[in-house]
């Protein structure tokens, strides 16, 4: 009798991770092909629930079970993009150019608009003309670094998804 199809996860590396969607916090196992050798780029072949987790015990929802489609996705951004004033399109640029541009814009705005004192002469040290948002889908450590980033720059208008 014919054998069943070969198991596609029989030669994978397993990495434990946590689903990035809702906040139930299901643990997932990411199966990658490639033995971590220098000349091999690992690729995700499958993601499924981690049975060790007391939360999901291996189960997942329709979104979590298809996380591979999220990670390996031709719509992912792979290059820094720039849209010039008045332009109707993106232009790919290098990282160095992107970082230089971002830093220059931040510094110029901060230099121009930073308030050391408010109208009553009280120290406020803020850049109210730059707002920043984010963090709800990133880790604690990134969020902590973001707090250093924004307080360093004096950004006070900072919000994340928890406000919505």
């Amino acid at each position: 009798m014919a054998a069943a199809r070969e198991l596609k996860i029989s030669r994978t590396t397993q990495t434990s991770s946590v689903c990035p969607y809702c906040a139930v916090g299901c643990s997932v196992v990411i199966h990658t092909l490639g033995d971590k050798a220098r000349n091999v780029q690992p690729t995700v072949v499958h993601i499924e629930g981690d049975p060790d987790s007391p939360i999901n015990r291996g189960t997942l929802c329709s979104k979590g079970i298809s996380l591979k489609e999220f990670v390996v996705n031709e719509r992912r951004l792979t290059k820094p993009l720039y849209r010039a004033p008045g332009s109707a399109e993106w232009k790919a640029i290098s990282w160095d150019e992107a970082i230089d541009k971002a830093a220059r814009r931040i510094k110029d705005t901060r230099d121009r608009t930073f308030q050391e004192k408010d109208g009553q002469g009280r120290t406020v040290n803020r850049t109210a003309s730059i707002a920043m948002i984010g963090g709800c889908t990133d880790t604690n450590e990134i969020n902590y670094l973001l707090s250093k980033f924004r307080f360093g720059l004096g950004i006070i208008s900072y919000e994340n998804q928890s406000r919505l």
Partner: protein
Amino acid sequence: MTNGWTDVANADVVLVMGGNPAENHPVGFRFVMEARRKRKAKLVVVDPRFNRTAAVADSYTPMRSGTDIAFLGGIIHHALTNKLYHEEYVKLHTNAAFVVKEGFGFENGHFSGWDNTKGNYDRSSWQYETDASGYARIDPTLENPRCVFQLMKAHYARYTPEAVSNICGCTAEEFTKAADLICSSGKPDKTGTILYALGWTQHSHSVQLIHTAAMMQLLLGNIGRPGGGVNAQRGHANIQGSTDMGSWNNLPGYLKIPRANHATLDDYLKAYTPKPLRPNSLNYWGNTSKFMVSLLKAYYGRHASKENGFGYGNIPKAGETENYGWGHFFDNMQKGQLEGFISFGMNPVANGPNTPKMLDALSKLKWMVVVENFETETAAFWNARKLGEKFYPTYVEASNIQTEVLLLPAACFAEKDGAFVNSSRWLQWKKAALPPPGDAKVDQEIMARIFLKVRELYEKEGGTAPKPLLEMTWDYANPLSPSLEEVAREVNGRDVATNKQLNGFGELKDDGSTVCGNWIYSGSWTEAGNLMARRGQEDPTGLGLYPNWSWSWPANRRILYNRAGADSTGKGWDPQRTPLRWDGTRWIGDTPDYKADAKPEDMGAFIMLPEGVAKLFAADLVEGPFPEHYEPVESPVPNPLHPNVSHNPLAPIFHGPLDKLGEAKDYPYVAITYRLTEHFHYWTKHVASGSQLQTNFFVELPEALANEKGIKGGDLVRVRSARGMVEGPALVTKRIRPLRVAGKTVYQVGIPIHWGFVGRVRGPLVNNLTPSAYDPNAGTPEYKGFLVNVEKV
């Protein structure tokens, strides 16, 4: 969540209201199904729609969106009048006995102290009566007419089943049936839990709504107990963690943002360190100085000294009454008052209220930096005219938008390590499985390279006020891409002299000898290593606490307020389900939410509150110490309780050119927006599987309304609000029942989110419709219960 996902299996009654876990948290919902199977728990669903959670419920009650406070107020009334509350618990663990000052009252929609010209309250009459030492007076008999218990009874006397029916639209019988089921958890050996989500938070009275839920749970003796609590099902993997790390009004660890009148650290600490209101109150926030100084020391390192207030002056400050929150800064952006905007993984054009306003605001910027996995509506806002023409026919052409945009490719979850905090407050560490695709980079590298480049420019060129920027510590082994393990160690905190990791926030000092990036996470990475990565399976209490799986803030405590789960002698209310008990010398079970070596009678169970007990009456909320039913900002009827003060008098409403509000005569139907199980937010429209499960945007219409309008399932309909429009096929269903409200028939229209003008599948953004009206305490927008009209196209 006060409790956690795994704990839901301990419940006897599960109230799902303002949430839809079967659809939006299906894996968390498994614990509801387990409680039903194993404990014969009753699942009670109250929702405008008969949804997939209702499909498996024991009781379903329809309601009008935005009337939850009336419903829960009705339950409070029901519990009090029928004596269904847990009396001993209420006396021991709440402020029911506290006596409120003379002069407190409520009349015609306003509490005492209302100032009509300022549009604000003078809250002095909402305070407790105090004795000479500043402690609140109490009446343990609960008979004093000015004690919280009696005031509460009087306040909710208006919330009869008939009144609830008249406001919410269910019948009085349906209400009473649900109320009886919910109140059956008021017996000492029963517990009931509440699962809610954005159906409760997205209102102009959301914090008061959750306060009502907390009051109900306190009356029923359900806080601090297995299978109890008030449990927010949070909607993003680390939305809890990002809340913990602060937003505009909070520093990490819920330390308040300094205000301009707090010139020095001492001023700040004086303003924000509460004093105990009872002699037996531990008042843990009395330690604020230790949390704050350790944070400042983490931020400013060697630049932080006792002499300079540990660098306190560097922290940006807001004016006393200023608000730099979402609604406010986008309003200022629209007025052209902001130059720059940075979005690290968020999509405000899609998820913020009033998309037309959002698009207008972004077009006024000089520059914007977006860090993302996919192109989003926000990154591509300048192309909205072309991509979403039907919905934004008058929006500016790209050629006339001067905003420079940088869209930087970031790693996704699988490509980076670090900790997510789930709804249960569990910090779970994940590992990176592969590198990011193409030239995409991990977020810490993108952020660090921009930050260090700005610093470099200041060092080279000089500029305005470089000190706060240059003094911020960034001394990581690889500053250009800090290791997140190194950052996690800093967040946990260490002793400066010995360089040893701290065991917990109990070791923090306010003399600069400890460093800690977020006091509530202290204990997550000790000398024993990374406790967030633990995978222990043990469950010694059998209550699903799993103390060795990951690490839970605070102090690895799994059930908050667990001391209240026991009586005055330290014995669990229900001997079968005791998370914490006193054995005569020590507390056994979960990490005690109490001083570890204190006897049961030594102090109040709610150690974080100055009262030492939980607050049924809360003077810290801006629109009143008791929750009151206020209509949504746009409502089909005037408030049946007080038509002249119809909606929350303190709700921030904006009045810009695109901030129009509609009236019932033009927009007769109540609209609600929500997620579907098939999609995640605005992400899975980029993903093949979600695109297949629900390819098309649609509008859910009650069958009776569809019949009135001659609309059949699949017909194209247009939904308009005063702000904008969406269009899609109608899903005609009996599952949204017409309601009878204040003598008239009210129809509700359901509109799922998830689509937009960028993606593998596309459709209208529902926030084209939603108003820029917010809750005054939390700043959440009113996405549930606004007005629309519907027409067949």
